[in-house]
């Protein structure tokens, strides 16, 4: 409790919250009947999900011929969407694991929702490799199980199989990490509930009591899972990039791919976190937990990773020219000025140029700019994957097999449908679980609450509160009249 906190560091929890007020603010949205906005959003999302199911059924029934892939372009929207969703699924674990290791306290405001988003995004990503097999029911062939064909094993040297292991491990570990964090919070929900609701939350909170020894083990577990998840999250997109980098296709066969893909993944993941958080904090009234300071921090990460990605694009072009290898040179000439030039323009403007706006503090702290930018980045990152996949395949070694590709309604439907799947799951999550980690927020209150630190702190900001000078949930001077004086227990 004697953590040293700089008085100039921005408070992460505003409104002079008491512990009880934190519980009240974060848990109560799960206890109320859903708002009209939520119901409308849910209906739209479920409609999208239903359309997804229809498109999958169509693909399975009619066959992959219902897509517009051809002999030259064997990967189109399917793998573009896969890589896009996996990328989005990187921010949650980055926030919860890497920022935990770096002791970044601002992670506590957004980690729960970001991890949920990760899990749902990986679920969406996992759909595409399965569907593009065509014969969905043989999907289990990708696992090395003893079979009656020899047994003939899978190819452990193939990056496509590494992907199977990477994605399934990432999904499992993210899920365990997320759920372990949720257990104490489910116990909080349980202890406020009655009747059937209490029974349900009793089931999912696993019998949590809050014993000191359990907390100690819980913290130890969280730290080690974070330590394991950190290299894991970097490995996953590295391996996804190997799908391309280990091939012998000019434009794919580059050593820059792993770091470039990982930076891009963090970039797009943070953008999706921003999109969701800006809406969630508004609708669930969590502005005092997910503050402008949190948004600014994430915008800084977006600026950094966007610029790394930009440097990677330029490096690729330079190295292609410098290599003196005509096939490589042509691949990149074609990427920028070929038939898909418009997707390259979309990628460059959304991913590299527009995030530069975040060099200005005013824009980093603007909710409107952040929201628009987060959508831009998501579009740009989708284009990036499309650029890498489609432009490269469209022009191969034989000009006679050069081709062009446009998606059919089925392929577009599958993409839109996974958005439906994603938002359906996310909307359910906001109804059943606390979207901010309640226990973790309480644990940083004394070092990051605005009654203890920052310009509105009692006495000299950096002094960590003591019962004698500040009553718990104390009376402090704050400028927000709605939420002040929050001692109500």
């Amino acid at each position, binding site marked *: *409790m004697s953590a040293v906190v700089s008085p100039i560091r921005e408070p992460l929890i505003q409104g002079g919250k*008491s*512990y*009880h007020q934190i*519980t009240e603010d974060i848990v109560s949205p799960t206890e109320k009947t859903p708002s009209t906005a939520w119901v409308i959003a849910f209906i739209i999302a479920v409609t999208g999900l239903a359309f997804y199911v229809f498109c999958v059924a169509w693909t399975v029934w009619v066959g992959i011929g219902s897509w517009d892939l051809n002999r030259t372009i064997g990967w189109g929207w399917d793998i573009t969407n896969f890589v896009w969703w996996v990328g989005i699924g990187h921010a949650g674990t980055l926030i919860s694991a890497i920022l935990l290791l770096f002791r970044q306290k601002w992670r506590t405001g957004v980690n729960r929702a970001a991890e949920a988003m990760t899990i749902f995004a990986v679920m969406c990503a996992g759909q595409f490799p399965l569907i593009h097999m065509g014969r969905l029911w043989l999907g289990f062939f990708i696992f*090395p199980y003893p079979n009656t064909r020899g047994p*003939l*094993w899978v*190819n*452990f*040297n*193939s*990056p496509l*199989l*590494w992907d199977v*292991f*990477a994605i399934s*491990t990432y999904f*499992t*570990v993210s899920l*365990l*990490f997320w759920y372990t964090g949720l*257990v104490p919070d489910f*116990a*909080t929900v349980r*202890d*406020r509930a009655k009747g059937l609701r209490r029974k349900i939350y*009793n*089931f*999912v909170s*696993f*019998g*949590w*009591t*809050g*014993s*000191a*020894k*359990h*907390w*100690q*083990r819980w913290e*130890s*577990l969280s730290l*080690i*899972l974070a330590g*394991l*998840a950190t*290299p*894991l999250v970097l490995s996953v997109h590295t*391996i996804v990039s*190997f799908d391309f980098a280990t091939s012998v296709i000019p434009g794919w066969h580059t050593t820059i791919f792993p770091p470039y893909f990982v930076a891009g993944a963090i970039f797009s993941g943070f953008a999706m976190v921003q999109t969701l958080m800006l809406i969630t904090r508004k609708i669930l009234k969590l502005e005092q937990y997910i503050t402008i300071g949190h948004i600014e921090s994430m915008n800084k990460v977006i600026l950094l990773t966007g610029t790394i990605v930009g440097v990677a694009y330029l490096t690729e072009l330079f190295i292609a020219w410098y290599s003196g290898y005509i096939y490589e040179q042509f691949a990149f000439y074609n990427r920028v000025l070929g038939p898909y030039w418009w997707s390259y323009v979309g990628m460059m403007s959304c991913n590299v140029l527009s995030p530069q706006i975040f060099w200005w503090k005013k824009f980093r702290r603007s909710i409107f700019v952040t929201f628009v930018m987060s959508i831009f980045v998501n579009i740009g990152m989708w284009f990036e994957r499309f650029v890498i996949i489609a432009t490269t395949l469209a022009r191969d070694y034989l000009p006679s097999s050069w081709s062009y590709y446009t998606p059919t309604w089925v392929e577009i439907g599958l993409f839109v449908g996974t958005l439906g799947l994603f938002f359906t799951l996310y909307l359910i999550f906001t109804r059943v679980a606390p979207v901010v980690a309640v*226990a973790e927020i*309480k*644990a940083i209150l004394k070092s990051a609450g605005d009654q203890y630190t920052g310009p509105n702190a009692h006495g000299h900001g950096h002094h960590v*509160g003591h*019962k004698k000078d500040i009553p*718990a*949930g104390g009376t402090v001077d704050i400028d927000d009249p709605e939420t002040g004086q929050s001692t109500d*227990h």
Partner: protein
Amino acid sequence: MSAANTEVLYGLYDDEEILLEAVKKAKEDHLEIMDVFTPFPVHGLDPILGLEESRLHIAGFIYGAIGTLTAFLFMTWVFTRDWPIIFGGKPYFSAPAFIPITFEVTVLMASVGMVVTFYTICGMAPGVTNATLDDRITDDKFCIAFNTNGASSDVLDKLKGFFSSTGASEVNSKTI
């Protein structure tokens, strides 16, 4: 957690810093604390309470090592003994290509193993109900609990005196 029908006398505190002082006092007075319950992990509590460091990381290392060996040896066996296949002119035993899967399986085994161990040693599982003393412990109350099975009235008075002198906001008893 504890055996059935334990009589417990417990005090609730409003702030973790008062709790820490109280736990220190209890240790000085040689009172045997049954357990301390808090709404969030209170740093600095473990050494005062005399809790040893968790050995979960050792278990995690062992599970991880099992994962490493399983994955690497299995792939080696498949490609050198069970069904050797030449891929792209590479040797059967192409160790670098085994690394990604070896890493993933290591992480998977370590994580799943540790999580299962964590819930098992904490006596937690889906649907398990462990007795709790007060619903507000998961909200904003910090609780020190004493086992008072067969305690004399002198002992009870002493414990009550301890609670009032250390600033407990409530003192209750419960059989769990």
